[in-house]
């Protein structure tokens, strides 16, 4: 009775549930940056930032590349629109289902009122 959530999208939603990670995406939307740059910008330890970037990387939202001793981060091939589209499809499915439910409930409610009136007569 349920529609399955694609795992990949769920990884993205988890990745996006954190304010710092959303900030990192915003930052990378403006320009690529190294983990050190990001750690400084968000006033965080290197280890902490590495973890955040790791989560975003797993979700496909960020890619990283080691150039010499520096790890550069940039936006991944995935975009937020995909998540929004998924939610919208999900919503539409329920919306249609509830529209039908509304019809059934409306019919039953009317019928009950009719029966009540009949009984009173």
């Amino acid at each position, binding site marked *: 009775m349920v*529609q399955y959530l694609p795992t990949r999208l769920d990884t993205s939603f988890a990745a996006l549930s954190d304010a710092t990670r959303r900030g990192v995406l915003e930052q990378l939307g403006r320009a690529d940056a190294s983990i050190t740059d990001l750690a400084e910008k968000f006033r965080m330890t290197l280890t902490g930032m590495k973890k955040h970037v790791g989560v975003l990387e797993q979700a496909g939202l960020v890619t990283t590349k080691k150039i010499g001793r520096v790890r550069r981060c940039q936006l991944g091939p995935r975009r937020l629109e995909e*998540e929004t589209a998924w939610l919208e499809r999900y919503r539409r499915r329920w919306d249609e289902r509830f529209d039908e*439910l509304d019809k059934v409930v409306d019919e039953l409610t009317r019928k009950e009122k009719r029966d009540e009136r009949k009984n009173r007569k």
Partner: protein
Amino acid sequence: MNARIESEPGPVKNRTTVERKSDREVVVTRTINGPARIVFEAFTKAELLKRWWVPKSMGMTLLSCEVDARVGGKYRLVFDHGGPEPAAFFGTYVEVKPYSRLAWTNEEGGEGGPVTTVTFEEKGGKTLVVLRESYPSKEALDAAGTGAAEAMVETFDQLDELLVALGESSGQ
């Protein structure tokens, strides 16, 4: 989560909202124009449930619908979705509080399937329905996303495309 999508309210039609609460929970809300008692019945009586659970626009045909809405009771819905085998959705009711609360497991995907909880709250002759799909853990959710379940997602995606096509051709 901030992701939240709402439909435009129509003249009679109420809004359906969907919200990601966490990495293992989705919440759908909708107000239905009728008392909680009747809405609850529409969820728990097979002859009523089968009239709305699979809207025609979904492109699926409900082959059978069995509902035993008591704690420990089972439900089973079998669909023809155009594939070689019909798809079955089944599970067990874990909470049944008449007119206010309903919860069932979703067992078609094996262990670690989500639990669906629905609450019904009546206000001024209308009923707010809040439906929550909740996985026991992040790991369970990840596991549910593999194999047969993924195939199901694809099926639904195809259906969505079909839906759009149908909607356009019928001028809705």
